[in-house]
């Protein structure tokens, strides 16, 4: 089953066309990695998928329900329901600094999804345990390392029970050691068949975790396929040049 279908997506900032004609499918349980140089539009694509940016043209369909058709958005009410089908993990974590770890994880499920407080809290405890942060429930974000903060952010996203998780360069603000912490968590999620779309610069990681790799450049998808094909045997010149630079 397709959880996300994107067709002919276009997006401009003033005169700059950032996404030219993007079409992309994400199936249930799939892990899709988006690679590409800075300014290629990969983060903008993820932000359009997360509805933090509005698109100028094209369609986006979530779990069979259209959110945008030919650049026209559905009503607020319909979008609200669609938005609950995914969550996003940010590069800079964006935890709420005045909430404890537990409150960061549980506040939205309780006050937005109106779920039972006890149930949400026990889910939150389980998630923290899974993230190796069981003893940090009462800490504030500033008392945690970057890697710990990002794991809290992932737990916060998971506690919304999304069908899909989007990651916007989740390790770019972290040093190599902390990056490894996060990649381990993502790997576990992939093994549990969590549907994920990951914008990343970690090529080796993308190869090991992804079912599909997308290479973007200049607002277009220039190459798409199994990681072995795109990363090890790129057919596109631009992909080849980019990967070669990384090897050096």
């Amino acid at each position, binding site marked *: 089953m397709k959880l996300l279908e994107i067709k002919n997506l276009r997006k401009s900032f003033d005169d700059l066309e950032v996404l030219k004609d993007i079409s992309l499918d994400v199936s249930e349980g799939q892990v899709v990695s988006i690679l590409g140089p800075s300014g290629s539009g990969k983060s903008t694509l993820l932000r359009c998928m997360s509805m933090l940016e509005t698109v100028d043209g094209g369609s986006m369909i979530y779990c069979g329900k259209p959110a945008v058709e030919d650049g026209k958005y559905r009503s607020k009410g319909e979008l609200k329901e669609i938005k609950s089908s995914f969550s996003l993990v940010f590069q800079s974590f964006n935890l*709420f600094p005045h909430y404890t770890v537990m409150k960061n994880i549980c506040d939205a499920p309780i006050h937005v999804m109106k779920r039972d407080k006890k149930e949400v809290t026990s889910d939150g405890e389980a998630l923290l345990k899974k993230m190796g942060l069981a003893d940090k429930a009462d800490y504030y974000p500033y008392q945690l390392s970057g890697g710990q903060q990002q794991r809290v952010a992932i737990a916060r996203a998971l506690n919304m029970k999304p069908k899909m998780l989007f990651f916007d360069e989740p390790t770019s603000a972290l040093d190599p050691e902390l990056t490894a912490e996060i990649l381990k968590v993502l790997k576990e999620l992939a093994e549990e068949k969590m549907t994920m779309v990951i914008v990343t610069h970690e090529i080796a990681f993308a190869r090991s975790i992804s079912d599909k790799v997308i290479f973007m450049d200049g607002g277009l998808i220039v190459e798409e396929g199994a990681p072995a094909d795109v990363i090890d045997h790129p057919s596109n010149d631009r992909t080849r040049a980019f990967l070669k630079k990384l090897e050096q």
Partner: protein
Amino acid sequence: MMLLAEKADLFPQLLAICLKLLGGVGATLGIFFLTLLFALPLGLLVAFGRMSRFKPLSLLVKLYISIVRGTPLMLQLLVVFFGPYYLFHVRTSNEYRFYAVIIGFSLNYAAYFAEIYRAGIQAVPKGQHEACEILGYTRTQKFFKIVFPQMVKNILPAVTNEVITLVKDTSLAFAIAYTEMFTVAKQVAAAQATIMPLFVAGLFYYVFNFVVAFVMESIEKKMNYFR
């Protein structure tokens, strides 16, 4: 011997001055607390107006802030007090003197607080708004749960400044002949041909502001539970 006698006179004299000034302290405290009571929340509404995406409203509020900041508070008090009579020929009662002081001070301080709030709100990182968006908070939830607490922390030092200025500004009520502590001090000084009441008044302001600074500092410390 002369010196000693004068010294012995000093304390009863000081006590008499203090008792007289005490009669005005109530009025000073009244202006202070009522202004804060009205201007702090009003400032938030003004800040919302200033940041509104509805252009006519934000322009109107901008004009209001510009006038309030661009003219003396003393003049504003005069306008509030005499305006109703000269503009609309409304006869105002004597009680209106007090209301005019509170209205004038509240409108003035609301404008300053509004700009402080605006700075505090805009200092909350964009990522916080985006996280709220992703988690599905409504605009109201986002403001009260996420933005407001961070704003309060951001603005405390600036608010302390403003509150301290207010303590001293209360003396401007004399412009419309509302008798507060400093007015009394000036009257006593003139009547007894001594500068002592003015010193006592100065000491009063200093102690008042010392307390204000202490209270604000402890609130700042309380807000240090997050960074």
